[in-house]
């Protein structure tokens, strides 16, 4: 089996300006931050970020990469609101495409199943229909004739997730409490599907690492590239390998208060090689 192992910069090299990039995880949990940092350092611009958003969206807003945000919420969990995303929104710098969080599931699922939309009650009566130009309503063809919301399939050019373990071929597993929607992100994007993991292990050890084959939820037909990066989700959590680095998250959040504070944080934690980032975090 051919190895799909590569580095963060190899992932970035496959991305181009204007792409729609789905990012797995949830809030400030299990985000593929080493790849996000590599995107932040790149010359990429004008991206659409599709995410149950946390510091992935915030960091890419702060570095001027984001043209459009597809998100149901943006939160750092222990810090309720994402300060860098807020700053970008309040300055009117990004196009905001809002969704309900369950609706997000449907947009990913529709893409994964290759149907143009999935119907739902979700959104009826709310201002989603006013503020999200991609939503339509659809009438049930059955006797009820209900008017429902049509959630369009999310057209992703790439999907990036961070999991706990993978083999070189791209079979991967989560070890924490929740897979979130990572498998759907990886199915929704037809190509450029990347996972970073804490550790690459031989295929024969994957099920034992997972503890049960019920956790082998990402198969190699869903993955084009594997980045091995211990600490790759930091400062977000990646249980049980590590909890969130609350101190560094606080520093990141605090850096939204002024351009000077942001410049200092960026210089210290973003504009450095990933290996240096990991060394610095470990030394804290």
């Amino acid at each position: 089996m051919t190895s799909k192992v590569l580095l963060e910069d190899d992932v970035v090299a496959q991305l181009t300006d204007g792409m729609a990039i789905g990012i797995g995880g949830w809030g400030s949990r299990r985000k593929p931050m080493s790849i996000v940092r590599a995107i932040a350092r790149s010359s990429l611009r004008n991206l659409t970020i599709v995410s149950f958003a946390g510091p992935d969206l915030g960091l890419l807003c702060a570095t001027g990469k984001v043209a459009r945000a597809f998100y149901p919420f943006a939160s750092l969990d222990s810090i309720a609101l994402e300060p860098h995303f807020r700053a970008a929104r309040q300055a009117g710098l990004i196009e905001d495409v809002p969704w309900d969080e369950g609706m997000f599931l449907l947009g990913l699922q529709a893409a994964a199943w290759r149907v143009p939309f999935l119907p739902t009650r979700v959104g009826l009566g709310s201002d989603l229909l006013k503020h999200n130009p991609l939503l339509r309503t659809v009438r049930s063809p059955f006797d009820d004739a209900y008017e429902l919301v049509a959630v369009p399939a999310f057209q992703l050019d790439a999907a990036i997730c961070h999991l706990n373990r993978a083999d070189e071929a791209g079979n991967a597993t989560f070890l924490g409490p929740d897979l979130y929607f990572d498998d759907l992100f990886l199915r929704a994007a037809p190509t450029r599907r990347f996972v970073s993991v804490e550790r690459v292990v031989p295929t024969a050890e994957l099920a034992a690492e997972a503890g049960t084959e019920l956790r082998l939820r990402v198969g190699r037909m869903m993955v084009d590239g594997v980045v091995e990066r211990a600490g790759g989700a930091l400062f977000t959590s990646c249980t049980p390998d590590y909890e969130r680095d609350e101190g560094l998250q606080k520093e990141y959040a605090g850096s939204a208060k002024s351009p000077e504070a942001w410049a200092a944080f960026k210089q210290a934690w973003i504009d450095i090689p990933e290996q240096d980032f990991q060394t610095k975090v470990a030394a804290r």
Partner: protein
Amino acid sequence: MSDPQLAASPVTRAEVCVVAVAECFRGDGEIVANPIGTIPMIAGRVARASFEPDLMVTDGEAALVAGNEAFAWPDGKVVEYYNPYRSMFDVVWSGRRHVVMGATQIDPWGNQNFAAIGADYRSPKTQLIGFRGAPGNTVNHPTSYWVVNHSPRVFVEEVDVVTGVGWNRAEAAGPAAFEFFDVRRVVTNLAVLDFGGEGHRMRLISVHPGVTIQEVLDATGFELAQADPVGESRLPTPDELRLIREIIDPDGLRRAELPD
């Protein structure tokens, strides 16, 4: 009540609020009580440990748990159902849930906003969390609200963004929106409100002990209907008080959300 110290210490406003939120779940039966926030979380446990024993509750992550503890499980967590976010939407869309959400703004019909404040959505004055699950929750299963700071800035004539759907908008959006719509109550630091006013407008049903009706009216930015009569929110029973203080929230986290 056996503990004299417990008996001696007066009931706090936070404890009255816990019981008022717990009352929102009365009659719900075997569904997921999903109260968001500290006081609502304690309230869900109180309801289950006393008058609504069939409720299911989350651990705040990916499990539904047995037992009465709200924030820590000194004897180990007892998981009764695995409920990752994926299956939470199965729960929500099948209607077997009652959520208690917060609101940065809420209008007379219960339209709620916690996405953004300001006249121009493209460039809001204040960006908040987003639509989150509010549009889906409100049209699929019972919803109540917890507002820790009852004020005219929260209780507004018109919200800037409708995230959670209120009675008038749900009715206007047709049968698919209204079929399972059930926005029930708003509990605040001052009072309990429902939607029993004319055309499902918000209505004051009880004030917490020590609060006057006028205080509530003054803290509400729109004309508020009143039940006849407006009652006084009940105090916790001795059993409920013991549950709150000794088992569910022994560390007093309720006071951090609503100081005495």
